[in-house]
């Protein structure tokens, strides 16, 4: 049994955070005034996609088809929220206006979010959730693989940590897509439907814009279009084994990563997620 004094130890999390700040590598990109707006927004893109997907995945907690899935999905959500803390934490630092990861997650409205549309999509059945996860994971692993060699040491550091976790995510989601695609007639039908539904959303992950250009020129991150060949190779391999048919449509839905046109779902996600922080703005939790 924990005793009272034990439970009332000083806040070790704060202590750890202060210690970590001392150890953080110096990174000239973080203090580059010209690059700041682009880097801030790019970091929000990384953090927001993790946050919103983490939120969606966490909705399964206690409701999945089998206990092992409850555990695995909670684990993935946990990893994604962890990545969010790192990306949005760095974004807040780069911005330099005193906003931390929580302020960015809980006090921005939908138009300021920079996540992909794909991750806002409703969970649907477990097959739809897993197909969305696989398409995202296959992008995520390539994104992080490149970022491990980023010219920004802070970015590289986050990517190295996240890469280990996402390697497991993609192994798992690929394996389940294969097993469900090549399972029963019903599971095959559901997985093909999910793939068709997610496809044009997934294409947004490979669209380039001016912001990507600025970040690429600084050597921080590869252009999104550059991630496509490796993504295609993995997706094709997995879909073939899953006996699923790759949709022939290169159209990309846009508006998530630029924030110009999110789906209607994002507002509801934020209304739920941000409720306490919005209703009790003076409280600390």
């Amino acid at each position, binding site marked *: *049994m*924990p005793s*009272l004094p*034990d*439970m*009332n130890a000083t806040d070790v*999390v704060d202590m750890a955070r202060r210690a970590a700040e001392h150890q953080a590598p110096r990174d000239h990109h973080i203090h580059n005034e010209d690059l700041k707006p682009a880097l801030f927004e790019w970091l929000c893109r990384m953090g927001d996609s993790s*946050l919103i997907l983490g*939120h969606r995945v*966490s*909705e399964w*907690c*206690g*409701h*999945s*088809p*089998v*206990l*092992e*899935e*409850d*555990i695995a999905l*909670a*684990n993935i*959500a*946990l990893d994604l*929220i*962890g990545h*969010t*803390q790192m990306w*949005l934490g760095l974004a807040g630092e780069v911005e330099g206006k005193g906003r931390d*990861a*929580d302020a960015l*997650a*809980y006090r921005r409205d939908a138009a300021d979010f920079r996540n992909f549309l794909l991750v806002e999509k409703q969970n649907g*059945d*477990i*097959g739809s959730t897993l197909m969305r996860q696989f398409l995202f994971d296959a992008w995520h692993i390539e994104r992080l693989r490149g970022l491990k060699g980023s010219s920004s040491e802070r970015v590289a550091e986050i990517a190295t940590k996240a890469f280990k976790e996402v390697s497991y995510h993609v192994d798992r989601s690929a394996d389940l897509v*294969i*097993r*469900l695609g*090549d*399972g*029963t007639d*019903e*599971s095959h039908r*559901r997985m093909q439907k999910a793939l068709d539904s997610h496809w044009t959303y997934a294409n947004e992950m490979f669209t380039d814009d001016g912001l990507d250009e600025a970040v690429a020129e600084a050597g921080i991150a590869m252009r999104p279009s550059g991630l496509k060949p490796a993504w295609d190779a993995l997706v094709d391999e997995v879909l073939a084994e899953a006996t699923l048919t790759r949709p022939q449509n290169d159209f990309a839905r846009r508006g998530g990563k630029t924030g110009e046109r999110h789906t209607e779902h994002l507002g509801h996600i934020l209304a*739920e*997620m941000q*409720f*306490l*922080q919005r209703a*009790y703005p*003076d*409280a*600390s*939790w």
Partner: protein
Amino acid sequence: MYGQELGATQRDGIEAGTEELEAAFQARIDNNERIEPKDWMPEHYRKTLIRMMGQHAHSEIVGQLPEGNWITRAPTLERKQILLAKVQDEAGHGLYLYSAAETLGVTRDDLTEQLLSGKMKYSSIFNYPTLNWADIGAVGWLVDGAAIMNQVPLQRTSYGPYSRAMIRICKEESFHQRQGFDIMRKMANGTPEQREMAQDALNRFWYPSLMMFGPSDKESVHSDQSMKWRIKINTNDELRQKFVDQTVPQAEFLGLSVPDDKLAWNEEKGGYDFSEPDWNEFFQVIKGNGPCNEERIEARRKAWDDGAWFRDALTAHAEKQAQRRGEGVLQAAE
């Protein structure tokens, strides 16, 4: 979390010619030996354990729901991570316990069907709703606190797999209780609204937590045999008293009031006098008339039914793979 020991525990009748085996079995228990899955055991011992472990496992699984209710609304990223990790632990406890129960010759699917049909119960506490964020604190502090009180003795229970599962579970539960208390501390020392939420949570969870130890010893029909077999170590009232004695100073530290006018320190017994929970409410909740019984079972049924195609597909794929491997072996042989 934990499973109240509920339901009938009548002797199934001694099988003919088993008196000697039973005597030897009891001697092993009295000698503090662990009973392992392949050992002989009385049928009634086996059934009682299946019921206890199954209920315990179901409680872990259903227990994901009231806490899961706040994951998407957790107020900070860190609180969200902690809660996710905690609920994940509960699912993990369910998994060990179902596995431990399977050593007694039931399957997880059988146990799940019995939960969904209402034949098996889960802890009544999870039929209470989580209405504000402090409830997540109260669940950790009080509900996990009460669970630990029950489970620590079960680490010494006579059935080996159950005892070993409890050792692991207790370590995690003690961490859960600390996180719950940490939320309560933050809320109790926060804004007036947060304080109000904390007091409200304590008001609503106090008596249901006391109910977690089961009916009063006067009414508990099945304690004797279970205690003789060391699948129950302490009586319900002993544990309830211990819980109150531990928790009241913690509530005082938080500056919250325990919702009991009769609560008073009794120097003579070295413990608190306190009001009993409303046992009529307890039995009504067990019968299905608690605030969330229908929602909880409905959520589990939906998860199970909606997931049928998923489970079938995994089985079908495994069969296809096995068949392909078989064909591969044949081809190689040719």
